[in-house]
Structure formats: structure tokens, C-alpha cells
């Protein structure tokens, strides 16, 4: 699932500084599940902006709306009238949502209010960790289901770097596990360490020709 994190308030205030009337648009799917841009966060952000402006002796009118998925033209279409009423749109969706909205309403500035961070999963309630880098050439079958490309800080394919910390932690962050130590332990448990002993030649980093396109079979 796509994980995102709300931008710091300082940045958002700069983004909408010139505008008096703004639509705060949320998205009901990924960013709702990771508490970044759902209906609840839309309400909180709108309220914060009103409080901020009134603290500066100024005013702002905020419209609030949340569509199911902001990366679908038909769903974003529903906001047509509200967008018409405002000077700018503050979108709390991931990058895909912001750009769908920007494409549909080209006459109005569409501004991102969250930073899309990674594809990940919840480690526990309220904490999400990166799991997949969408590299277009999945390697998980050779590492017992642990992806070294994003979970190893250097994306190495043939084993850990020399910098692993005591206890199998990553060179750059003592809190994070070294992916290759995790891979070693899992493959050892499965008795498939031969997979780790195998030499893997350099990756094809152009498996997905950016910007990527996927054409499903013509149903």
C-alpha cells in the first residue's frame, strides 16, 4: 500500500500563502489507511489553517472534500463545482492523486500537502515500514521473501556490506535490521542457503523505463 506523511505545517502555510479560498481534498484509500490524507486528516488540516490565519489576524475559507480514490478521473470529476469556487486546491493524496487532479483542473494550482514516501506495510498500529521499491524486476524468490533492493540501505544483491553493526543492524541506522542478516536467518531456517551462496550479476535497473507504462491484456 502507498504510504505518505503530511508535509510540515510551515511548508503548507507557504504553499497557500497567496490564497483566501482553498479546497482541502482528501483521498479515501491508501492515505486514509496510513492516517495521512483521509477525511479525518482533511478536517484537522482545514481547522489548523483557519486557526493559523485567525492567529495572524487574517481569514481563510476552506472547503473540505474526500473522494474514494483521487487517482481516478471519474471520481475526481465529482469535485468540479467545489474546485470552481476556490483559488487553489490542497490535495492530501499521494503523488498520483495530486497529478490526476492537476490534469483535470489545469486552470487552478493543485498543491501537494503530503509527501509520498514508499510502498509498505504496518509494523504495528501507526508505524509503517518500506517493503517494496517497485523496481520492475522482482528478486524476492531468491531471498526468502525479503527485498534487499529497498530494505538494504545500499540495495546490494550478494550479501551484507562490511558496515553491519553488532547484532545484525544496518550501518546507517542502529534501529533498522540489516536486510541480508534477515535473509540469512530465514534461508537458514528453510535450509535454502544455497540461494544466498549463488552469485547474482548486476541488476537491470531499466526494467521499468521511467515513466513506466503497463498495458493490461485487452479484456
Amino acid at each position: 500500500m502507498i504510504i505518505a506523511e503530511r508535509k510540515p505545517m510551515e511548508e503548507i502555510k507557504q504553499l497557500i500563502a497567496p490564497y483566501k479560498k482553498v479546497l482541502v481534498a482528501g483521498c479515501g484509500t491508501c492515505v486514509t489507511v496510513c492516517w495521512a490524507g483521509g477525511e479525518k486528516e482533511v478536517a484537522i488540516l482545514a481547522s489548523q489553517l483557519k486557526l493559523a490565519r485567525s492567529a495572524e489576524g487574517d481569514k481563510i475559507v476552506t472547503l473540505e472534500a474526500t473522494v474514494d480514490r483521487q487517482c481516478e478521473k471519474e471520481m475526481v470529476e465529482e469535485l468540479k463545482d467545489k474546485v470552481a469556487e476556490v483559488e487553489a486546491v490542497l490535495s492530501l493524496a499521494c503523488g498520483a492523486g495530486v497529478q490526476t487532479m492537476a490534469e483535470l483542473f489545469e486552470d487552478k494550482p493543485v498543491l501537494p500537502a503530503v509527501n509520498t514516501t514508499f510502498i509498505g506495510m504496518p509494523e504495528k498500529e501507526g508505524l509503517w515500514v518500506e517493503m517494496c521499491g517497485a523496481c520492475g524486476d522482482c528478486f524476492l524468490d531468491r531471498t526468502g521473501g525479503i527485498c534487499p533492493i529497498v530494505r538494504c540501505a545500499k540495495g546490494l544483491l550478494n550479501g551484507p556490506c562490511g558496515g553491519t553493526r553488532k547484532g545484525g543492524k544496518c550501518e546507517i541506522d542502529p534501529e533498522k535490521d540489516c536486510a541480508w542478516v534477515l535473509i540469512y536467518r530465514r534461508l537458514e531456517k528453510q535450509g535454502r542457503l544455497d540461494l544466498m551462496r549463488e552469485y547474482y550479476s548486476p541488476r537491470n535497473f531499466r526494467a521499468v523505463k521511467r515513466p513506466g507504462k503497463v498495458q493490461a491484456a485487452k479484456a
Partner: protein
Amino acid sequence: MATPFREILKTKDFVVTAEAGPGKGSNVSKAIEHIELLKDKVDGLNVTDNQSSVMRYPSLGICLLIKEHGGEPVFQVTCRDRNRLAIQADLLFAYSRGVSNILCLTGDSIDVGDHKEAKQVFDLDSVQLIHLVHTLNSGKDMAGNELDGGIDFCIGTTATPSADPLEPQLIKVEKKLKAGVSFIQTQAVYELDELKRFTEFVRNTDEKVKILAGVVPVIGAKMAAYMNENVPGIFVPQHLIDELAQAPKGTGVSKGIEIAARVIKQIKEEKVCDGVHIMFIGREERVPEILEAAGLL
């Protein structure tokens, strides 16, 4: 002209190498001083490549200087800063100017350096880099095209004998040995039994490879604690830290040299491995003192 490193590895029974760290700027006078000081005292001079991800004068530049001054350079190549095109080009350039020893490293991550927002490359990793050098040695580039004039490098790599857990590290070393390396310069080693365990492991995969134990003198208890925390792959054991703590104020450096020399002597006498690689970061001029204290001059 110094004897090629490849010959030294075959003939000499205790090989000693040191490091000539490039500076941050185009003025190479200090580097030349270190080269002049060390070139005749050691068998090879490693030149680090943007060590701990800190931008410095390029490694290849210092290697050429060493060649000019009659020393034997070991060209260190990391996979952090260049993709496979740039690395192959640099290897051709290095070989064409007489640099023929290469140390293949993965390289520290950008986060530990001073350009923390740079994009890290890691198009290759250290094992893939070794395979690449062999490919070039065979006269072809990575894409399989014939080279007009190939190269013939003496290939070396690194390892961390005191890694915890050790097994994943040994699997990678095994891959490096299978890829084919002539020498290994290890990360700093402070516990001899860790070194013994490592050399024993390497021996039963490949007898010919020469192992040079990494020696990083520690010049004070505070410095040791700092290195344990921030320098990747360094684990100064507690008993050494305590020993350093007792050293009277101001004698930290000489205490560090004394400990380093003691370790080198032990390695030499007990023939634990085939030599040492001395890394005295920032104090290259004090390396001769270590050599002398260890009876290697």
C-alpha cells in the same frame, strides 16, 4: 621503480601496506609528503576513494602521483559514486597509466558522509565489481564488446572478520574468493582469535589468497567509543578501551601506536596471516613509528 605488488605477494612472506588518504582540495603537496615518507617503507600504498563518503581529491589522481614518485599504488574503487560505464572507463584509464592493483569495495553509504542528500549509485556491489575486473582482464567490456587493448589488474577486496553475526559476511567472502582475488585487506581487527577464525575459513576455500590484517590504531578511549558508534565495521573491544583510558593525558597517540605495534608483532610471530594493512586515518606521517615499533623497517 617499485616491484609490482603482484610479485611481492608471491615472494614476500609478510606484506605490509599503508594508506595515503587524499585531501579535500586540489593542493596535493601533503599527499606527496606522505608518498615520499612511505613509498620505500611499505610494499603498497592504498589510496581511498571518497573515504566514509566524504568528497576528496580523486583516488586515481594520487595513484598516478605514487607511480611518478616510484611507489606501488593500490587503486581503491567503491560502487557508491560511479555506475558501470564510469567504473569501466576509470579502470581503462588507470591501467593505461601503469596502475595495476585494484581493491574492490562496496563503499560506505552516503548517510555517513558530508553530502547527505546526494543520490547513491550502487549500480554494482563489490562481488559484481570483481567479476567486472575479470571480464575486462579477459579483453571484453561488460556488454561483451571487444576492447582495443585490455587490462590485467591484480585484484584485491575487503572483509570484516569481527562482524556480528559473522556467517552472512563469510558467505559474501566465499563469493569473492570464487570470483577470484589475489589479496584481502580486512577491516580493523583487535581480537586475534577473530582473525584466526577468519583466516582458517578463507584457507579452506582458497590457499593462495594473501590476507593482510587491517590495523587501525586507536588514540584514546573517547576516540574508540566514537569509532564504535560512527565508523562502520569497527568494533574496539572493551579491554582495549580500558587500557587506553588508563594512559596518562596527552599520551593517547603513542599508546595507540604501542598497541598497534603489539598486535602486528603478534600476527607476524604467530604467522596468523600474510601481512598487515595499516590505516592511520589523518596521521599518515606517524606510520613509520608503528613500522619501527613493530620491527618491520
